C-alpha cells in the first residue's frame, strides 16, 4: 500500500538523522519500539478523522541552529524567567533566567543532564505513542524544571519553542517538569514558528503530593506546520495540575494529554481550538482517575470556520476502587460555516460505583437568545455575532493568570473572530 510505504519512509528518514549522544538507553528503547512501525492511517480508530497523508508525503530534514527575533513574544511579567529553544537547540542569547528564584532548577537539559533522571519515566508502563517515541529517539535538547519541596514560585516561567524552517525540517521539543511535595509553579509553554516543519513536542510532568502546577500551553505554529504533541502528567496525592491548551496555528495539530490522578488530586484540562481554512486540530485526551477522591474538570471548545475540522476524543477512565471520583467533561463547538466540521466523542469508562461523572457535547451555532440580548442593546446582527463568537473563545481565557498573556491571547482571538471591528475588547 502506497501510504504505508511513504509512511515508513518518513519514519526511516527521520530516524536516519544521527542519534544524539545523551540518554542512549532511552533512545535505543524508543528506536526498538519504532522498528517496523508505520504512520497511523485513518483505519486506526484513534486516527479516524485525522489523515496524516500530507505529513507522510513530506521529507523533513534535521533542523539547523538558527537565530530568531523573539521580541514580539516577550511578556513583561516573565522577562527574567525565559528559556528559548530554536529548532530544538537551546538559544542562550534569547534566553534570560536571571529572575528565577534560588532553589528552582530551570535549565536546558544539555546543561543539566544530572537533573533529568526522571526523563522518560512519566506514565511508565503505558504504551508510548509513535510521535512520542520519535521525540525520545531524536530530541536534541529540551528544558528541565525542578521545583524543590514547598517552594512556591511567585513568577511564572516562560518557555518558548521556536521553529524557523526554509526547507521542511523536523523538530522535537522536550520538557520535563518536576514539582516536589508542596511546590507551586505557573508555567507558560509556547510554540511558534515560520515555514514548513514537523514539530513533535513531548512534555512530562510530575506533580508530587500537595504540589500545584498551572500550565498554559499556546500553539501558534506556522500555517505550514504539523504539530503532534504528547503530554504526560502524574499528579500525586492531593496535588493539582491545571492546564489550558490553546491551539491557533498549524495546518494539522494533535494534542494528546494523558493525566493520571492519585488520591484526592485535582486536574483541569481545558482547551480551545480556533480553526479556519483547511486546518485540522485534534485533541485526544486521557484522564485516569486511578485512586479515590480525585476531581477533574475539562472544558474543550472549538470554533471552526471555512473547511476546517476539529476532532475531540475525551477519554475518562475511573479505575476500580476510585470511589468518590468527581469528573466533569464538556465539549462545546461552534461552527461558523457550512463546510466546517467537528467530530466529538466523550468516552467514559467507569469501574467504581460511588462516582459523580458528567459529560456533555454540543455542536452548533450561536444562541438566538444571546444574539437578541446584544441586539436589544443596539448592536447590529453582525456585531452581535462577532461579539458572541469572541466571547465563546475568550471564555476559556478568563482565568489565564499572566495579564499580558491574557491580553495578547484575547487580541489574537479578536483578530481571528472578526471582533476586531468592535474596538478593543481585550
Amino acid at each position, binding site marked *: 500500500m502506497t501510504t504505508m510505504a511513504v509512511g515508513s519512509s518518513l519514519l526511516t528518514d527521520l530516524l536516519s538523522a544521527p542519534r544524539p549522544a545523551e540518554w542512549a538507553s532511552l533512545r535505543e528503547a524508543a528506536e526498538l519500539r519504532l522498528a517496523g512501525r508505520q504512520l497511523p492511517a485513518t483505519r486506526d480508530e484513534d486516527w479516524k478523522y485525522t489523515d496524516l497523508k500530507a505529513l507522510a508525503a513530506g521529507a523533513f530534514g534535521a533542523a539547523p541552529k538558527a537565530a530568531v527575533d523573539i521580541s514580539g513574544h516577550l511578556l513583561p511579567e516573565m522577562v527574567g524567567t525565559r528559556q528559548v529553544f530554536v529548532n530544538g537547540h537551546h538559544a542562550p542569547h534569547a534566553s534570560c533566567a536571571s529572575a528565577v528564584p534560588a532553589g528552582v532548577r530551570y535549565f536546558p537539559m544539555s546543561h543539566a543532564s544530572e537533573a533529568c533522571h526522571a526523563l522518560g519515566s512519566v506514565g511508565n508502563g503505558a504504551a508510548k505513542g509513535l510521535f512520542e517515541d520519535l521525540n525520545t529517539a531524536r530530541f536534541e535538547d529540551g528544558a528541565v524544571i525542578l521545583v524543590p519541596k514547598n517552594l512556591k514560585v511567585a513568577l511564572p516561567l516562560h518557555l518558548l519553542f521556536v521553529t524557523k524552517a526554509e526547507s521542511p525540517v523536523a523538530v522535537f521539543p522536550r520538557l520535563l517538569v518536576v514539582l516536589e511535595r508542596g511546590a507551586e509553579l505557573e508555567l507558560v509553554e509556547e510554540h511558534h514558528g515560520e515555514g514548513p516543519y514537523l514539530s513533535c513536542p513531548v512534555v512530562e510532568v510530575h506533580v508530587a503530593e500537595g504540589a500545584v502546577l498551572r500550565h498554559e500551553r499556546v500553539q501558534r505554529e506556522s500555517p505550514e506546520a504539523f504539530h503532534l504533541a504528547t503530554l504526560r502528567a502524574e499528579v500525586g496525592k492531593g496535588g493539582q495540575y491545571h492546564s489550558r491548551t490553546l491551539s491557533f496555528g498549524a495546518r494539522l495539530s494533535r494534542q494528546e494529554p494523558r493525566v493520571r490522578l492519585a488520591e484526592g488530586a485535582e486536574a483541569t484540562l481545558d482547551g480551545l481550538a480556533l480553526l479556519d481554512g483547511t486546518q485540522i486540530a485534534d485533541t485526544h485526551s486521557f484522564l485516569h482517575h486511578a485512586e479515590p477522591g480525585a476531581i477533574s474538570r475539562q472544558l474543550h471548545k472549538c470554533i471552526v470556520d471555512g473547511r476546517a475540522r476539529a476532532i475531540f476524543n475525551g477519554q475518562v477512565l475511573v479505575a476500580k476502587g476510585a470511589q468518590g471520583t468527581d469528573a466533569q467533561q464538556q465539549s462545546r463547538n461552534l461552527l461558523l460555516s457550512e463546510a466546517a466540521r467537528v467530530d466529538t466523542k466523550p468516552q467514559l469508562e467507569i469501574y467504581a460505583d460511588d462516582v459523580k461523572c458528567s459529560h456533555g457535547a454540543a455542536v452548533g451555532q450561536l*444562541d*438566538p*437568545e*444571546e444574539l*437578541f*440580548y*446584544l*441586539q*436589544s*442593546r*443596539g*448592536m*447590529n*446582527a453582525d*456585531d*452581535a455575532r462577532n*461579539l*458572541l463568537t*469572541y*466571547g*465563546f*473563545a*475568550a*471564555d*476559556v*481565557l*478568563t482565568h489565564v493568570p499572566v495579564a499580558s498573556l491574557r491580553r495578547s491571547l484575547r487580541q489574537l482571538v479578536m483578530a481571528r473572530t472578526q471582533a476586531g471591528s*468592535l*474596538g*478593543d*475588547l481585550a
Partner: protein
Amino acid sequence: MLSIKNLTASINGTPVLKGIDLEIKAGEIHAIMGPNGSGKSTLGKVLVGHPAYEVTGGEVLYEGRNLFELAADERARAGLFMGFQHPIEVPGVSNAAFLRLAYNKKAEAEGRDELDPLEFDDFIHEKIKLVSMKEEFLDRSLNEGFSGGEKKRNEILQMAVLEPKLAILDELDSGLDIDALRVLGEAVNKLQRPDRALLIITHFPRILETIQPQFVHVLSGGRILKSAGKELATELEDRGYDWVLEEAAAGGAR
C-alpha cells in the same frame, strides 16, 4: 411617544396578545400589572423586537414611526430599552467592554463622540455609583455567575449608560431585596426626565412605592382590562387581581 393600537401577537402560533391599546406620552410613567402568564412580559418583548414573537395585527407608532419596520438593534439605537426579567449571561465578554461597545454604538448612531477606554472608565465609574454596583462587576463576564439581584442591577446600569427615551422594566423587583430595590428604583427615578417615559411591568405593587406611576393598567388574558391612576396599584395590593377579572367578565357578559 408610543401609541399602541389593537396589537395582537403570538408565539409558536399561540395568541398571547389579543388586542392591546395603550398611549404613552413623554414624561409619563405607566405600570402594567397583572397575574402571571397574562402577557405582560410578552408586550415588552414584542415592543423591543424579540424574534420568538410574531406580530399578527395592529399597529405601534414610536415617535411617529412604525415600530415594526425597525430591527431590534435599530429600535435600541432609536431610544427603546427593555430591562429583562431574566437577563442573559454572556461568558467571555467583559461587562465593561460590552457596556462601552453598547454606548459607542448608540453614540455613533446619534452623531455623538465615541468614548475611548480611558474616557469610558471615568464615565462608567459615575454610573456604577448610581446603582451601587461594586467595581469588580465591570471586569467580570457579562452577567455570568451574577446573582438575580446583580443581574437586575446590571440592567439598570445599562439603562443608565444608554439613557433610553422609553424604558420598559420587566419585573425589576424579582430577585431584589428591599434595600437593593430602593436603590435601583431611585436610580430609575433619577434617569426619568420630561422627554423620557417609563413602562414598569410588575406582578407586585411593591416597586410602585418607589417608582410612582401616573397610570396603572391591569393586563390579563392578553388584554388590558382596566386602566386608572396610581390609586389602582394600592387597591390591587389590598384586594389582589380577582375582582378586576370578575368585573371584566361581568362587563363582557353585559
